[in-house]
């Protein structure tokens, strides 16, 4: 019987279109990704306004989430009504560093949707009663979330990696919602939702009128005080990557940061703790995190460590999945990945396992990490890992919204969409020796941080 070619040749390059950049008078950069073949448009406003910038607990997320809850000309109900009436989607997401405010719309309703966007982004009122209701609801939601071993482990892992007071490690008690006021939120908005802290990415069918409407919104963002170069003293310059960057397409929008202004905050040094346990009496599963602090995406070893993480736990047939799930049935799923922040990065292994096999699962995870340090990855396995990473990229880039997400990530790393193929070249160039060298360099047992949340662990 016939079979299909089981060893297809790798796709050469992904050739993602470079974003066209337009600089507005107030310094805000507008990035345009034209894809006229679609009938939809997504506009994303990125602000340097994540939780690391807050003085008052929960003020960063409250600001982002309350933008649409009442504006100068529209009540919260009217904002929601208008967006729903045109079938438009409004999405707010926040991480430690940034806030992403996105509007997805049918291109033919761009004018109507962007009129609402203008209110949300530029004229929010943060009404007292909306802030109070938000705090009550979030407090309850967070209390529920924190009953999950997985959330307990995630928060404890951040504390262990960075330290309980570090901006990347801190997690406030839910009672802090009681103290959050309307003034805290308004002050955070005034300070951080400014022109030097913003850039905009449009993707899809961008009619000239829609582009002008977006520009008109962004151009109204007020200026801010900071103009210096961004200093990143804690991260080594990407020496190795520089070679790979040499052939880069230069006709693109990248030249450092997409933000007009610099971020001059002092950044405290992390204080890592290697072991932490969170007691959760009665849990039938334990949640495990194992990993260590490494470096952000700009670091020359980041791509290589992505390969290491992928081989370890980045796909369904990964070493950890084969061991913990397929061979031992300890877990429904286990993953390993490199996580990127603006000023830090780390490797994390995450799994939920049966309470009674927690110790055995930990031992197997350590053993699989150790095996990467001692044995060379077989060529065939490494080839597989590379194909998977390539395929993942292709899937993310399928469609105008995915391309926008990747573009934003590249811009935040101070690069452009040429980085996709450059990064792919780095991944393809990784050898079994590279994998072992990196695992030896970064994944020694004594450097690993282990966190377990679950029932009385022996």
């Amino acid at each position, binding site marked *: 019987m016939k079979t299909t070619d*089981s*060893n297809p040749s790798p796709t050469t390059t992904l050739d993602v279109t470079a974003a066209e950049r337009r600089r507005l008078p107030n310094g805000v950069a507008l990035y345009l990704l034209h894809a006229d073949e679609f009938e939809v448009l997504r506009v994303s406003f990125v602000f340097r306004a994540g939780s690391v910038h807050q003085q008052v607990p929960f003020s960063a997320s409250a600001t982002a989430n309350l933008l649409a809850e009442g504006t100068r000309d529209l009540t*919260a109900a009217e904002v*929601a009504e208008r967006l729903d009436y045109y079938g438009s989607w409004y999405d707010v997401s926040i991480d430690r560093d940034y806030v992403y405010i996105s509007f997805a719309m049918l291109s033919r309703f761009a004018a109507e949707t962007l009129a609402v966007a203008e209110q949300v982004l530029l004229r929010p009122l943060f009404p007292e009663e909306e802030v109070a209701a938000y705090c009550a*609801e979030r407090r309850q939601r967070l209390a529920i979330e924190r009953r999950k071993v997985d959330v307990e482990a995630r928060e404890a892992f951040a504390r262990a990696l960075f330290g309980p007071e570090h901006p990347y490690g801190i997690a406030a008690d839910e009672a802090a919602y009681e103290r959050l006021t309307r003034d805290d939120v308004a002050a955070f908005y005034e300070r951080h939702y400014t022109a030097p802290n913003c850039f905009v990415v449009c993707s899809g069918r961008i009619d000239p009128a829609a582009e002008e409407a977006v520009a008109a919104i962004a151009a109204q963002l007020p200026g801010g005080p900071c103009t210096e170069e961004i200093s990143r003293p804690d991260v080594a310059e990407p020496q190795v990557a520089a070679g790979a960057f040499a052939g880069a397409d230069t006709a693109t929008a990248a030249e450092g940061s997409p933000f007009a202004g610099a971020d001059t905050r002092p950044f405290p040094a992390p204080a890592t703790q290697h072991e932490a346990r969170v007691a959760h009496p009665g849990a039938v599963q334990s949640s495990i995190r194992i990993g260590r602090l490494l470096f952000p995406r700009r670091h020359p070893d980041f791509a290589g460590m992505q390969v290491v993480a992928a081989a370890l736990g980045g796909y369904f047939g990964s070493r950890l999945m084969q061991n913990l799930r397929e061979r*031992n049935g300890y877990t429904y799923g286990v993953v390993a990945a490199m996580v990127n922040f603006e000023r830090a990065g780390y490797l994390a292994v995450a799994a939920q396992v049966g309470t009674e096999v927690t110790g055995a699962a930990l031992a197997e995870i350590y053993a699989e990490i150790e095996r990467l340090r001692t044995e060379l990855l077989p060529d065939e396995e490494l080839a597989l890992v590379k194909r998977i990473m390539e*395929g993942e990229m292709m*899937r993310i880039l399928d469609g105008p919204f995915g391309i926008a997400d990747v573009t934003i990530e590249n811009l935040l790393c101070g690069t452009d969409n040429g980085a996709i193929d450059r990064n792919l070249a780095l991944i393809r160039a990784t050898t079994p020796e590279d994998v072992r060298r990196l695992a030896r360099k970064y994944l020694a047992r004594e450097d690993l941080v282990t966190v377990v949340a679950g029932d009385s662990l022996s």
Partner: protein
Amino acid sequence: MIPYRKKTLDNGLEVVVNRDRQSKMAAVNLLYRVGARNESPERTGFAHLFEHLMFRGTHRHPDFDRPVQMASGDNNAFTNNDYTDFYITLPRDRVATALELESDRMTDLAITPGKLAAEKRVVVEEFRQRYLNQPYGDQTMLLRALAYRKHPYRWATIGLTPDHIEAATLPEVEAFYRRHYRPSNAVLSISADLDEERMLAMAEEWFAPVPDRPAAAEPIPAEPPQTEARRQEVERDVPATTVTVAFRMGRRTDPSFQAADLVSDLLAGGDSGRLHRRLVKQRRLFASVNAYVTGDLDPGLFVATGQLLPTTTVDEAEEALWGELLSLADGQASDYELEKVKNKFEANTLFGELNVMNKAMNLGFYCMAGDLELVNRETALYRAVDHDAIARFCRETFRPEQSSTLIYRAAR
């Protein structure tokens, strides 16, 4: 609009293909008409366990994932009460790889006692992770058991208990495979930037040789009519009480389905939905609310649910939910509101068609449901729903004697 071509092979396999002109990716979807509703009450969770076993390899391909991954592809599957769906996305020049693998595991699955034992452990861990070790994890199970007495919808896809999964035997697995995993019980759908004729020819090439094993459909016990209100209260270690009311309604393919779905959107479609606006924002009774239809092949449920704020009593919460449901039965939805939920449906349909995966999955679903044309007619059917249809559905559905109320109380 998803243009498509359909062909039924001699062995009974239905094939539907769509040419997508944008994507570099292809989606291959294989749907089997078997779900939790086909299970025996002593072996609940079996269809889902079997879905897992489909990834355990054949004689020819001991590792199913590897050839997919070597083609830069990704694959997964899900099981619900009505059907089991396997899907692969990969670069469009690799479609044949997906077809070969799917045709291979339709006939040649190699399950050993060891593989079955390992997979049973994985599924039991899934049971624990998703249903036992989560706040509110058993809520939908309790609701099903309350709303259905006879029909197998009374259990969730994961099953009634991990014991049923533990008890599954190899002969049972083999019999299930023979009975349900055959060409005439499946729908293959493909969406890719490839010529439609070529996709149909490829499907023929890989699936025509698969022999069919016809089997008569086993009758599924019908749910008797409900004649009185049902109610259950449980107490759990959760921070907030929830109130859920489920009503018996019709099938996915009934003519009233679009009106039912629009009612759920009027109540809970986005932040402007009535429940959110009135009960969360104005009256501050709930932290969150939702309403949805289950959309099943057999008569399903309309569910309204809310998580209470600490200051709200269960009585107040129930009264408030009923008030909103009955106000729609009184014909209180405005022209504007109705237009809004229809617009939203249309926009979501367009957003959904951006992606080859969604398109292949939708084609498979509508073909399985027995009305493939509906995939492109649905927007017009939603557009045609008028105020009378909305009020009529609400009057016929939101009746105490057709309701099942679950109070999931936070332990003090």
